[in-house]
């Protein structure tokens, strides 16, 4: 998992470099593929600076609080169904609890603490301003995202992640097509919740010189970095599960395409997740940044009403059909 995150960083640097007609990292290994290892070594051996006036305990704890929720969310994400490998039944997920979606929402929301505490503990103005921005942003967009998840729950009739994929199989349609509005809101909300461009205000380098982790260095900074990318992967894999049919092959009910079934489910899953991540990077390379008030306006005046309307319509359709 953490290895995936570090290579995600390389992927980002490469993709954005290509978009910007650059080469990106080239020095470490062929085409820079070993760059993540160099990065990790560098970050681990760097001096860990704690500002004198900082609150030591909270300052140390904040990066961990940011990273841990991002990692434990993976417990409920299904990479594939139960498959048999050499005659043994292996489930490609850690656990399947019947409140899976709510679990993801609630655990992910703990991550806000990491950000706000980092800003507070640094005892510095820019980080504080950034962390207040970040937590307000995360809380606002969480509402919209949770509302879309409600409409997904209504469509699928279950909160279990496995159940949602199976529901998509039975209804014969990826929810991307059945719930385009929810998809859109989730995508925008996901960008905002992971603090990615164009909603990367909390770390807006040009305004706040780096945001809530301005005062961090070395491994503690690396933990924040890992948390951000881990969150991206979480958002992408949840989106894959909810909207792109998880491990299902494209058009799972059309017999003519059954030859696609020879590719195992987990490869489909990873492929779809990768497409999501790629879109994240693409958006980052293309769009300017929103301003704080515009961000809030978009969240509260556009996305949340839209999400609520979507829930109502979904429920009505569900009852009528």
């Amino acid at each position, binding site marked *: 998992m953490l290895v995936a995150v570090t290579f995600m960083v390389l992927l980002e640097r490469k993709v954005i470099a290509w978009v910007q007609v650059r080469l990106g990292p080239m020095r470490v290994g062929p085409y820079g593929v070993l760059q993540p290892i160099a990065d990790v070594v560098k970050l681990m051996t760097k001096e860990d600076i704690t500002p004198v006036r900082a609150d030591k305990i909270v300052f140390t704890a904040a990066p961990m609080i940011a990273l841990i929720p991002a990692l434990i969310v993976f417990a409920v994400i299904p990479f594939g169904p139960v498959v048999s490998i050499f005659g043994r039944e292996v489930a490609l997920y850690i656990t399947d609890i019947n*409140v899976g979606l*709510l*679990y993801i929402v609630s655990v992910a*929301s*703990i991550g*806000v603490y990491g950000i*706000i*505490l980092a800003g*507070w503990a640094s005892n510095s103005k820019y980080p*504080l301003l950034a962390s207040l921005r970040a937590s307000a942003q995360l809380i606002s967009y969480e509402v919209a995202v949770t509302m879309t998840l409600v409409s997904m729950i209504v469509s699928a009739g279950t909160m279990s992640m496995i159940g949602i994929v199976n529901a998509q199989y039975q209804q014969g349609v990826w929810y991307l097509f059945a719930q385009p509005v929810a998809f859109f809101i989730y995508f925008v909300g996901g960008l905002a919740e992971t603090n990615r461009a164009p909603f990367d205000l909390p770390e807006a380098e040009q305004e706040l010189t780096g945001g809530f982790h301005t005062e961090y260095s070395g491994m503690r900074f690396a933990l924040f970095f890992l948390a951000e990318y881990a969150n991206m992967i979480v958002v992408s894999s949840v989106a894959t599960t909810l909207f792109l049919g998880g491990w299902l092959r494209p058009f799972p009910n059309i017999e003519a395409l059954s030859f696609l079934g020879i590719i195992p489910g987990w490869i489909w899953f990873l492929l779809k997740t990768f497409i999501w991540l790629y879109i994240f990077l693409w958006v980052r390379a293309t769009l300017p940044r929103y301003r704080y008030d515009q961000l809030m306006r978009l969240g509260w005046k556009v996305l949340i009403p839209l999400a609520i309307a979507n829930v109502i319509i979904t429920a009505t359709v569900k009852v009528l059909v």
Partner: protein
Amino acid sequence: MAEAIIFYTLAALILAFAVMVVTVRNTLYSALLLAADFLLVALLYASMNNLLLAVIQVMVYAAGIVLVYVFVVILVNLKRPPEQQPDRGRYRPIGTILAAAVLGELILITATGALRPAPAGGAEAVGSVENIAMELFTNYLIPFEVASMLLLVAMVGAIVLAKKEL
């Protein structure tokens, strides 16, 4: 056996954290310890097979309410060191005595009350989403609506209070 170990560990931690919440000097630490305490309570719920409630506990309490407290603590402490003067309330002795007395009383009652063993009934089913939702939207529909009104009123009230000029 495993159940007992989990329960005693969680209970001990919950109480220890709670004690720290009310005794720690730094208000921010208090709030953070409370958040940790709520997470532990959520684990307790989970160990009782109440997953829905555990998740709600985390989502609403740990990540919602306490976060608001943290915000306020940060706002209030912006410019000055946390609590310069020792925070020794006048009622501390009374509080200690009262708390000890009522605690003793409750322990007596529960220890001697000898509750019957739990009637048969799948614990799994009790805490499930379906059952709770069924109860909530049939028997308790009106309280549910009233609760939503309460939240609405609270929201309006909070906005009015937070506005700079009334």
